[in-house]
């Protein structure tokens, strides 16, 4: 593995794991999350579980791309990065894919999905205005308890074509750090 400065994320002096090692680990886990999503899909699992693993994979890929430069400690606990980081990752990888770049509509769709994906995390509720998430029950605006496994998540169609594009993007972006 390439050693990008052997920077200690904790004390600054000891031989703790490098940020590059953390990035590689997060990327590998993201690939595993995507595999888990496929297994859930084949097994007929509820939509919330497919979305949950999709969201976790996206979050980990984005964190991997943030960790090498900003440090593990600055990134590890935050959730609200997918909306801002995924479009930049998409742009970068699209620009490198000479001959098979994304169309403008695809980049826009990725940006929209990035926001929807981010809001699936329980911690991202836009000041409690968006409590719907793929993991925990919540109280909706009409004071009715909603349960992820029964909720339709009608604003996200995870059978839409752009989902395939995003999954490919996540795999490509994750592999960039896994292979280091």
């Amino acid at each position, binding site marked *: 593995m390439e050693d990008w400065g052997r920077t200690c994320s904790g004390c600054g002096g000891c031989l703790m794991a490098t940020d590059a090692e953390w990035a590689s680990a997060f990327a590998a886990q993201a690939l595993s999350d995507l595999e888990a999503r496929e297994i859930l899909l084949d097994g007929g699992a509820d939509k919330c579980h497919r979305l949950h693993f999709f969201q976790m994979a996206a979050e980990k890929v984005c964190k991997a791309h*943030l960790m090498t430069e900003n440090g593990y400690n600055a990134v590890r606990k935050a959730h609200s*990065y997918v909306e801002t980081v995924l479009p*930049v990752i998409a*742009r970068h990888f699209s*620009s490198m894919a000479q001959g098979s770049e994304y169309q403008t509509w695809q980049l826009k769709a990725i940006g929209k999905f990035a*926001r929807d994906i981010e809001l699936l995390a329980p911690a991202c509720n836009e000041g409690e205005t968006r409590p719907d998430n793929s993991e925990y029950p919540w109280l909706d605006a009409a004071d009715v308890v909603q349960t992820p496994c029964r909720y339709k998540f009608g604003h996200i169609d995870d059978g839409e074509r752009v989902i395939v594009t995003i999954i490919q993007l996540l795999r490509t972006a994750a592999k960039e750090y896994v*292979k280091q």
Partner: protein
Amino acid sequence: MPSQKMRVAHRLAQFHFKAEPNLQAVFVLEPNDNDVDDETVRLLEVVDGSVARDTFAIGFAPNPSAGIPYRSVVVEVSPHELPELRDRGFVKIRGREWKIGEELVRDAVAA
């Protein structure tokens, strides 16, 4: 910045201009005078419609087959954030200041 690295920065900026129609401007981020440079190309990218909330840096591995032999880092900001950043003259990444350097303009062929 060494000319070879500057050429790579320019090439990377052109890739990004081509991929993102809303990319308005790209600047090279350079180490302060007394700081040591590293094997990374850092770009400050100004994107119309950016929803970036922090100046977080997004890192990418080298891609020699595309002519990018260095690691690269993108810091995305919106156009309304740029004046303040330019007045300040630097972007802070992980406590370290990176000077906002030369603007990399869009090549005619990439427009």
